[in-house]
């Protein structure tokens, strides 16, 4: 179809421009009318850190070395993952005015939510660096692997975000389901506990959880100064791209019905 108007949707420059204005829009909207503004993206993980530290270190007396750094290195990626999926479940419904605009490239919306959450994550990284330095941990060469781990997490989150966003339009129950699943998964994921000591059959089973695999990789780099195990990360990258492509296909199939069902 010789239709530049449609062709424009697939031009990379157009997609880049749209991603940029929509991520910026996300930020402006979030903080426009809040007093503390962007500081909220730091306050949420810090509050969680304080609570978990008191409960697990002071009261339950877990003996994990460098516990504050350990916690924060788990909390930040987990918050990125969790809030991405929760917001992407609502993104299409919440942006229905945009979705109904002629020629709006709906397919960018889940990516926009994951991108904005990633920016919050990146903004909080300096805080993590401060905690690492306080704990006497120095950066090592392993740090070069960090962007790669972030990239794998991005791919994983985006691929799940497409599935969640598609389901939400069909079934409004999805957002509750996502909330429950994330809550349960947060306990299965070593955010505040360390599972490196548990016996073998269980260890492998736990590592099937993609977020467990990612958090272990973050901690290997940041706390132990080691390169993360390559195999699980590579497997995760392959898995994410497979889920991403099927998620995109499902999303694009369903897209035509979004406007009718909103």
């Amino acid at each position, binding site marked *: 179809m010789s239709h530049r108007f449609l062709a424009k949707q697939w031009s990379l420059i157009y997609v880049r421009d749209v991603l940029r204005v929509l991520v910026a829009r996300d930020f402006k909207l979030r903080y426009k009318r809040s007093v503390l503004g962007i500081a909220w993206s730091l306050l949420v993980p810090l509050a969680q850190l304080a609570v978990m530290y008191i409960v697990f270190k002071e009261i339950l007396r877990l003996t994990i070395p460098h516990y504050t750094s350990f916690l924060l290195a788990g909390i930040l990626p987990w918050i990125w993952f969790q809030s991405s999926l929760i917001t992407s479940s609502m993104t299409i419904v919440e942006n229905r005015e945009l979705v109904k605009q002629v020629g709006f490239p709906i397919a960018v919306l889940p990516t926009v939510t994951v991108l904005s959450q990633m920016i919050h994550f990146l903004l909080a990284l300096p805080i993590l660096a401060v905690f690492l330095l306080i704990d006497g941990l120095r950066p090592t060469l392993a740090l070069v692997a960090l962007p790669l781990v972030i990239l794998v997490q991005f791919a994983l989150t985006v691929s799940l975000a497409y599935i969640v966003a598609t389901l939400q339009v069909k079934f409004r129950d999805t957002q509750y389901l996502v909330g429950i699943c994330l809550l349960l998964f947060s306990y299965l994921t070593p955010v505040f506990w360390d599972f490196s000591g548990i016996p073998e059959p269980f260890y492998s089973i736990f590592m099937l959880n993609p977020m467990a695999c990612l958090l272990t990789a973050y901690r290997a780099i940041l706390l132990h100064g080691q390169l993360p195990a390559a195999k699980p990360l590579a497997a995760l990258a392959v898995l994410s791209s497979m889920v991403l492509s099927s998620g995109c296909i499902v999303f694009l199939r369903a897209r035509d019905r979004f406007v*009718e069902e909103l």
Partner: protein
Amino acid sequence: MSTSNGYPAILFQDVWKSFDRHAGQILLRDRLRHMFHSHRPEKFHALRDISFRIEHGESVAVIGHNGAGKSTLLNLTTKLCRPDRGVVEVHGGRIAPLLDLGAGFHPDLTGAENVCINAALLGLSRRDVRKQFDSIVDFAEIGDFINEPLRTYSTGMMMRLAFSVATCVNPDLLIIDEVLGVGDLGFAVKCRERIMQFRRAEKTILCVSHSNDTLKDLCERAIWLNKGEVMDDGPIQRVVEAYKNAMQEHAVAG
């Protein structure tokens, strides 16, 4: 761009479109219930076997009363939905949809921020937006308010800004849905003037409206829809006459 390689600007061929009567979000609960009770959603046929062809540079009005299928026809043209059967083709360059003006605006963002977002969505690059920004604001007669949140605007101001952004992209196809009454009288004249400019520049115009008089100046051809079928298609004078007579008969009979 306007007379491109023998394709019509818009082509509808044997188009059918129906909606489920209870379309919309379905809770899992309903889904589960439907699994046990066989359930066929009632179909509502918005368009039945519609065919027409609009050439580049033509200006065409779609008339008909509420529920005749006018909005569905526009939604199909703008690809907001797809036909159940048949073919919808749209050829040419940019579309400027003057539908639901300002719907994509967010009340908490300033006029300027909204302009930049909307223009980017319409396909303008950042440089184009910067270049055209002043003329967009000037045309809308917003002045210093441009840096205030949109929720402080009057409806007229918001419509003016939306119209101004929507038409800044130099479109080849203009789709108009009863927005000629934008803002106050002075601005309505300005809008008409801009639309007539597109008309003189031989852009394709597809227009939907109840008010037949504005249509007669703007369009040369009309398509009359009734209950999803084409009743008449031809010179606007004739079709509008026929439509009015039918309406009157209907009123007398009813």
